């Protein structure tokens, strides 16, 4: 209960102060360039990695990137850049 209450309070705070929600709410931020590049910030780690699929853990679940020849161009603390032929993006919680 506390988590839910806290979350609402934080969202309202973010709205009120016009702060980026992903920072306040600890949400992933996705930037997609066409179907060839996907930059994901604020992730929690790679769950599974193959050429056709990358599963990345985020705050509330995971993001699944599917495609061909997927390559992780950079993998740093909070940031992951995926390149290749991206065919789909799924959010699962």
């Amino acid at each position, binding site marked *: 209960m506390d988590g839910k209450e806290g979350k609402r309070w934080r969202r309202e705070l973010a709205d009120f102060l016009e702060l980026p929600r992903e920072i306040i709410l600890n949400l992933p931020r996705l930037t997609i360039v066409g179907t060839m590049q996907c930059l994901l910030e604020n992730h929690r*780690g*790679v769950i599974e990695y193959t*050429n056709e699929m990358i599963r990345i853990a985020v705050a509330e679940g995971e993001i699944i990137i599917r495609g061909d020849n997927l390559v*992780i*161009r950079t*993998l*740093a603390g909070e940031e992951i850049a995926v390149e290749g032929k991206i065919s789909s993006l799924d959010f699962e919680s």
Partner: protein
Amino acid sequence: MSVMAVRRFFAGYLVITISGAAAEKFMNLASGLGFPLWDISCGGESTIFKTGVDSFFELAPLARKTGCRLRIMRKAGWPFFYRRLRRRRGLFLGAGLFVFLLYFFSSFILFIRVEGAETLGRERIMAAAEKAGLRTGLPKSGLDKERLAAAMLLLEPELAWVGINIQGTSLVIEVVEKSRPPAGDERPAHLVAARDGLIVDLLLITGEPRVRLGETVRRGQLLIEGVLYPGTYPVAPLAVRARGEVWARVWYAGYGEAALQEPVATRTGRREVSWTLVADGREVLRLGRDGAPFRHFDVETGKQRLPERIAPVPVELITSIKHELHLRVQELSLEQALALAAERAREQAVLQLPAGVEPRHIDLRQITTGSGQPVRVRYVLETLENIAVVQEIAGGE
């Protein structure tokens, strides 16, 4: 190449394959601990990634912990390249030597080219160049191009200008040859009068004068004889080419007349156009009315020729325009008639004037006639000209 990639190259990096079930776990751990991984790709059983050199020793225990095996596939970047270079000193030296030799040999003149030699020929110019101290194998630096060009000019009198340029390893000698006037004609000749005149000045260079100042000469009269007389020596006279200038006053007369009642023709504006196509000198086609369409008319014709590269035989289109004329008689006052006659006389006189000669004096004289007769005018232009022209002596003297 990004700044990041340049930095990675100079810092050196490793290409590593990781095998084991928990490769993802290893990667998460590594990146979480601040060891950057990049260019991660999946190659069947194993995963390949790149990481910094310093990270590797820290990563090895992580791999052991996660049950993965790391294997270095390739060491890349400047530090490794440099080490290889140091080990293979010969290669390095060879590359350096190559660059040095390239530079060294390109600092010499290896080829000499001559441009602009038309009648003299390359050999003669090259000979002059060699005498001036120019040859292949000279170093490019320290070459005094201007001094060499000047020396070549002195050595080869047939050259008017020499320019020396260096293009890479070749030296280009650009020359301009002297263009001499054709050799003077030395065949014996007289100078004779080109036209009637009164001699006012005589400049004798070679020959024997046969006229005196103030003398009136006729056209074709001998002015300077192309013969040298030996004076008192008992030698046969020598035929030479007479040279000199004979300046004379020359008159050109024109005659014009104008009646007090002059017929004047003016174009009415009506006209008839006809076209004739002539091919190879023969009339092929005629368009338009033939003959005389008007009682009085004048004809204006124009020709257009087809370029010979188009037609195999000369093809001409002749356009003739016949303008109708209206004739009437114009009454002229004495002054008008006089002016008209003078203009006609002037035209006639000016027509005879040789090109480039300016009249010095103009004399206009009315020839007296009875009343009712046309007005008559004589127009005389006086010029001062060199009337001497060459006349070859047939077969010598």
